[in-house]
């Protein structure tokens, strides 16, 4: 199994037969791309829930005020 690995040393692995920059930047790009499009939606969900909570409180406040205004 392990001998199927194409690289005898880590340096070789990094170097990618001279194409290190391109190969690694492609994989880096890909990683960023995947991470961003998974993490941003998750973060956004938190934000939305926070906002909705705040909004709910404000509305409750408005309603109570209006009811007092009527009296």
């Amino acid at each position, binding site marked *: 199994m392990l001998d*199927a*690995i*194409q*690289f005898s040393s880590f340096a070789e*692995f990094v170097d*990618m*037969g*001279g*194409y290190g920059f*391109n*190969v690694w*930047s*492609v*994989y880096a*790009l*890909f990683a960023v*791309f*995947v991470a*961003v*499009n*998974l993490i941003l*939606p*998750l973060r*956004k*969900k938190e934000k*939305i*829930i926070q906002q*909705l*909570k705040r*909004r*709910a409180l404000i509305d409750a406040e408005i309603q109570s005020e209006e009811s007092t205004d009527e009296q």
Partner: protein
Amino acid sequence: MWVWFSKLGSPKWFYELSGKWLPWLIAAMVIFMTIGLVWGLLFLPPDYQQGFTSRILIVHVAVAGTSLAFFPLMFVAGTITLVWRMKLADMVAKNAAILGAWFSFITLATGSLWGSVMWGTWWEWTDSRLVSMLFQLFLLLGVISLRSALEDSETAAKACALLSIVGCINVVIIKYSVEWWNTLHQVSSPVSMGNDSPNGPEFWIATLIMIIAVYLFLSVSLILSTRNEILERERRSQWVQELVLKS
């Protein structure tokens, strides 16, 4: 049919169902990604003529192939929005446009990173796939900016639906006309993409795994952002209120 549709149309239903599916999808995505990446990076034997750069293609081809799926997707979503007035379809379409732009961009980027090795240039107008992908990106950005320009969300939904339908037809026309145009320039073209693509089964198996992984990633990301969209648009509805207060 109708019952089924209206049921499927209901954001609440989708939110709950997708909630059930997400963990499995994510698990599958993680598995395929790791297999694909590890194999691609460590085990894939170097291509006889392209050396280790064939590792780029695994990612590139997967992303590129997937990015071709977006306009058909938006076409379907658009039709559903216009014909059946299904809110959910528009929520999907909105995020599909954005994600699609991402995919097209990554295709371009990885492609040109490969090109800089293969052709010694980062960009090549004489390759039809590059050009048509570029214009697919433009069309997607057009849809996105139309959405952001229109203030009323109802209007924006239908307008973008119509535009994506027209755009999808156009992408096809563009693709073919560009290819044709390109054949006339082949003579002078220094390279043509894909003629000397790495061969050998390992390469294509690795690519296949990556393609599956990328499709899984697409659906996960799309579902996540659609769920956010649902929360925002249905924020007044009973079930969202409860859900918010629970969390």
